[in-house]
């Protein structure tokens, strides 16, 4: 299997390649080098633990965007017993950057909606790199309304660089589509649980993220602007920006799951396997499912009125200001 290693994972890559080579050499031959391999494997684990215990916000951003990272449909495949994808906004088209449908998890019917990035060039283009158009948000809202009518909980997976900035998107009301979702999600009479599984890119992410419970995977990010966008505004070097600039911006923005829980914006962090979710998608999916089930269980006792009131209070509390009286 060809793995994709990030720059700061190079020491891991070297060792893992060496292990693979040793295995190949020893394969079918009498020489026993299993103890050698074991030693190396322990070394890899140690190095990985060390690297992953001191990740910078920028490095977490890179993991959140890792090309091998599981996406919404991967998790849907792993956590649902049954799933039917539903398409289209009934107005313009079917936006493939957002997927959604009816699903069964542990015998509970839920509506699952999420941003969907593509794997491989062809699918990436088809999914527009997970950047929705207005019709994507309108499809999402249509499915949420469906869940509301049939009194089913809504699960949303957030993973987008942002809403697409293009001519068609503007012509068809990108801003309006997002705004309407924010308003309507605050009033949906059924539980909403959101999980940031990768990139939470600004308004395009939030448009699926007004919820009763919000979780983030350990190495996911959630921010008002990308580190690249922030660096471009702050240091205005026009294309001359370096990784150091992005790294500085990522730190300044406080965009990690750990930051957001300290701000009390989210309810919990779902730990990832060592090396990131892509290292063990099954394990990751199991953890996600556990969190969803606990939240569904907890929220199902609340009346729609109480649910909406608490959701409103939660939003009303967010802000950092003083009243100078």
């Amino acid at each position, binding site marked *: 299997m060809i793995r994709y290693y990030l720059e700061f994972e190079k020491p891991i890559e070297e060792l893992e390649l060496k292990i693979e080579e040793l295995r190949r050499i020893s394969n079918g031959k009498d020489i026993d080098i299993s103890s050698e391999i074991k030693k190396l494997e322990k070394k890899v684990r140690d190095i990985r633990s060390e690297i992953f215990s001191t990740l910078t916000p920028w490095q977490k951003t890179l993991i959140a965007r890792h090309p091998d990272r599981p996406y919404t449909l991967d998790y849907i495949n792993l956590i649902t017993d049954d799933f039917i994808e539903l398409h289209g906004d009934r107005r313009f088209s079917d936006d493939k950057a957002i997927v959604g449908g009816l699903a069964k998890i542990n015998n509970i019917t839920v509506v699952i909606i999420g941003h969907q990035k593509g794997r491989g060039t062809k699918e990436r283009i088809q999914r527009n790199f997970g950047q929705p158009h207005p019709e994507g948000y309108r499809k999402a809202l249509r499915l949420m309304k469906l869940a509301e009518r049939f009194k089913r909980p809504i699960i949303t997976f957030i993973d987008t660089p942002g809403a697409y900035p293009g001519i068609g998107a503007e012509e068809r009301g990108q801003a309006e589509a997002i705004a309407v979702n924010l308003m309507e999600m605050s009033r949906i009479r059924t539980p909403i649980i959101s999980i940031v599984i990768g990139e939470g890119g600004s308004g395009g992410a939030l448009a699926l993220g007004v919820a009763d419970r919000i979780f983030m995977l350990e190495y996911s990010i959630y921010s008002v*602007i990308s580190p690249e966008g922030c660096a471009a505004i702050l240091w205005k070097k026009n294309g001359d920006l370096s990784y150091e600039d992005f790294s500085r911006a990522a730190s300044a923005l406080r965009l990690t799951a750990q930051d957001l829980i300290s701000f009390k914006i989210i309810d919990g962090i779902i730990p990832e396997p060592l090396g990131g979710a892509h290292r063990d998608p099954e394990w990751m999916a199991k953890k996600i499912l556990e969190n969803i089930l606990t939240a569904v269980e907890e929220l199902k006792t609340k009346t729609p009125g109480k649910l909406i009131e608490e959701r409103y209070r939660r939003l009303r509390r*967010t802000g950092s200001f003083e009243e100078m009286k």
Partner: protein
Amino acid sequence: MAWFKKTKETKTDKKVKTQEGLWVKCDSCKEIIYKKEIDRNLKVCPKCNYHFRIRARDRLKLLIDEGSATELDSDLMSGDPLDFKDITPYKERLKENQKKSGLHESAISVDALIEGHAVSLVIMDFSFMGGSMGSVVGEKVSRAAEQALEKKQPLIIVSSSGGARMQEGIFSLMQMAKTSAAIGRLKDNGIPYISVLCDPTFGGVTASFAMLGDIIIAEPKSLIGFAGPRVIEQTIKQQLPEDFQRAEFLLEHGLIDIVVNRKDLKRTLARLIEFLS
């Protein structure tokens, strides 16, 4: 245009200063116009009807019955939740903008009368950090909506903003959801909300309360959108059409209700309030 370039090159800082205050170049038609003429015309270009950006307090005077305003929440001051430092720390940047603009924040909130009708009115000021929305703007808008609901009076928000304020990070982003939720409560209770979009309105402000009006009005030629034109150009690597994201373009695409001249705005708001209440 050769002569035009030349004069630009030979202009020194001093010359600009002596001319400042007397002559203004229109952002839209590039005509040089006598400033007093523009001021007399409510800061609207007499040649092309471009509506210059105006300060929140000047806008207030144009919209309400004289002496009817009570300012609300003027004592709200932004925190610095990220401890954000770029070239200047966020706290200093706020102070600079407060000094420069005479405002505490990029929006003012008032209780006032428009042709005798009581309204909750929020006006944004682009000259304060690009009219950006942080926690204070979010709170002012939300409180204004709640107050409108309580007093059963229309809410009017005049927007002019670059979007969510980067320096407050995720807190700014969450103001989008907070304000939209507050507007949502008006919809359930038949309280009219009129949104007025002015040059420019973008990003997190457009993608929240600004596009949620029961009625959405824009001033002529205002630039309004989700993504800024430069970002779009860089993404699609094409030049954008001349009228792209102008108020008239939005009207053409069915995104707003009416384009209204500044001189007619107060009367239009009063008529709409009469229709809806």
